[in-house]
């Protein structure tokens, strides 16, 4: 079972880096992204026999080819960013909130319900505020339930939040069947299409202007909250070591529940923005897997909400582009999931080379500075 004859030095050794300069870290990440684009290019070429450069051009065209396409790209980036911002405090606390998908849907269902019920009785500005508040409460509740069990009985939060997603998805399907319009279509249809009651007003002539303003404000707010507030500091301590937190007199239970309330609330608000600010309808694709993608966004950005903007943009850009190449070259748009997967695998792998050095046999132990 054990081999003692370790006389020969292994071919490769790894050593932890003491620290890495920021430009070097970004150079490694950039190299990973470029490498992944090459691999994706090989994949595209082997499947389609098309020139990958042409395909990448088509991708760009699909995402930013016309002003309308650009706005759709921005709208979807903002959605993904909003959920990622919501997840940031939970993940910083090392609380694996896999339940964003469900929290978004709950916010969406409540918004759609209020929009249908009060569209004709409450004026739009008041209705918007009301819907924002109730969707925040809904998402909050969906996040606090698993957090409470985690805080008091140490119930596994990864699995609990994962299950809550599916409860929310079935609830959404239930509401879709309940509110079906027209009958037999199995969709809710656009709510208040004629009156536009409960819809976001356009800002600066842009239908999605308000989405951008709201989410950017959240992004900046969350950055400040995590970095400069006392509560943000408590989250960091609990995330690094619960024992240290207890020793320092921080109530881990309180911080856990409070942080998940915030996390769920922002995800619920994302559901509100998705329904009132962009689709004006509700279905399971209101979240459409973004709750899961946002986890990757939040993790890769290492909870820095400004970096999240870049990563969300990259992912949505690829998605939109892949839909374009799918229609242009007669493929199907699941190609975008493959390319997204390849790029994420490379970025995930590249973190290793940021934290560790690989030393060849006979290499020097000391780091070159």
């Amino acid at each position, binding site marked *: *079972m*054990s081999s003692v004859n370790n006389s020969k030095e292994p071919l490769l050794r790894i050593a*932890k880096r003491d620290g890495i300069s920021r430009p070097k870290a970004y150079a490694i990440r950039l190299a990973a992204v470029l490498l992944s684009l090459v691999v994706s290019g090989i994949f595209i070429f082997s*499947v389609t026999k098309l020139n990958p450069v042409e395909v990448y051009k088509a991708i760009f065209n699909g995402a930013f080819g016309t002003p309308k396409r650009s706005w759709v790209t921005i709208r979807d980036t903002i959605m993904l960013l909003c959920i990622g911002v919501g997840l940031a405090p939970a993940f910083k606390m090392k609380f*694996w909130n*896999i339940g964003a998908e469900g929290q978004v849907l709950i916010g969406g269902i409540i918004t759609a319900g209020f929009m249908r019920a009060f569209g004709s009785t409450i004026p739009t500005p008041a209705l918007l505020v009301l819907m924002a508040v109730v969707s925040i409460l809904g998402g909050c509740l969906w996040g606090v339930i698993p957090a409470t*069990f985690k805080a008091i*009985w*140490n*119930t*596994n939060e*990864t*699995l*609990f939040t*994962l*299950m*809550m*997603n*599916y*409860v929310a998805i*079935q*609830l959404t*399907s*239930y509401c879709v*069947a*309940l509110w079906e319009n027209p009958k037999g279509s199995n969709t809710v249809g656009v709510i208040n299409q004629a009156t536009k009651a409960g819809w976001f007003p356009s800002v600066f002539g842009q239908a999605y202007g308000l989405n951008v303003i709201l989410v950017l404000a959240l992004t900046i707010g969350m950055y400040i909250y995590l970095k400069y507030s006392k509560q943000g500091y408590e989250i960091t301590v609990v995330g690094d070591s619960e024992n240290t937190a207890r020793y320092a007199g921080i109530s881990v239970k309180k911080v856990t529940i409070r942080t998940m309330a915030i996390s769920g609330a922002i995800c619920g608000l994302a559901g509100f923005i998705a329904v009132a600010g962009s689709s004006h309808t509700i279905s399971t694709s209101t979240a459409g*897997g973004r709750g*899961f*993608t946002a*986890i*990757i966004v939040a*993790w*890769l950005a290492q909870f820095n909400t400004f970096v999240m903007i870049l990563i969300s943009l990259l992912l949505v850009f690829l998605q939109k582009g892949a839909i374009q190449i799918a229609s242009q070259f007669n*493929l*199907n748009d*699941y*190609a*975008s*999931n*493959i*390319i*997204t*997967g*390849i790029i*994420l*695998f490379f970025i*995930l*792998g590249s*973190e*290793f080379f940021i*934290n*560790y050095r690989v030393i060849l046999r006979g290499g020097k132990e000391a780091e070159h500075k």
Partner: protein
Amino acid sequence: MTLAQLIRLLQSSVCFGTVIMYGSIGEILTEKSGNLNLGVPGIMYLGGISGLAASFFYEFNNPAPSPVICLLVSFVAAFLAAALGGLLYSFLTITLRANQNVTGLTLTIFGGGVANFFGGSLNTMAGGVGQISVAATSAVYRATIPGLSGLGTVGALLFNYGFMVYLAIVVAIVMHWFLNRTRKGLNLRAVGENPATADAAGINVTRYKYLATCVGAGISGLGGLYYTMDYIKGTWANDGTIESLGWLAVALVIFATWRSVNAIWGSYLFGLLFWVYLVIPDLGRDSIELFKMLPYLVTIAVLIGISLRKKRENQPPASLGLPYFREER
């Protein structure tokens, strides 16, 4: 409810259960090594599409396909493709030390993309009808034992399935025996409970984690194979069903409290809960959706229950989801 309805319900439950049973017993093996692989849906996708693609190309190029080769080609392709998915996950999380949850979710996105992309393309390739069909291979998977399936109610309930239904039960029992009655199984559990101690005892933690994850992924992939070959009879649809079944498989791991023999009855129970709306009269479409929530609610109840009771033997592996780096103890 008539007897015929009851039999139909139980049969649907068993077929449904078998898909998620493969997924979850593969994941149990993986989780016993301390790896929480959230890529199960992606892995089941990989298994399903590879089995389908392999048998499609075989049947496409051979006018008279031999049943044995049909079976071998699709089975091996499904297992290997799924195990490769597990290898990718292992390489990233064990060797490159990436985060397990994020890597697993990425694998789910990737696997779903690969399967639906090539599934859609195969449907196009299959010609004018626009629907792939591997009738010969599917027939092998759905063959029942002649004579036994005709034995009235008993035959219909016990012997009316393809061989993979029985194989799933065998795999579950063998895995239970392996984990609890063999030296290697004990070592594997030690790795999942406390890798540092296992390492100190001379167990090769890396090798155990790699092997358990890859073999576990291969077994999970068979769930996808059973789904394409038997459950939907050798066709393909880009409807995302495998993904939701994959998450149910993850739920079943918890429900079975990490014991593969519990997954046998647990999976049939999940099937029953999922299909029970068929026999309840006068249900609207909306209420059906609420009934489909049942398996998840039951899983949440079990999850809360095991954390409340704190029985030692029902807990998840102690280092589940945690990374292990020897030099960072």
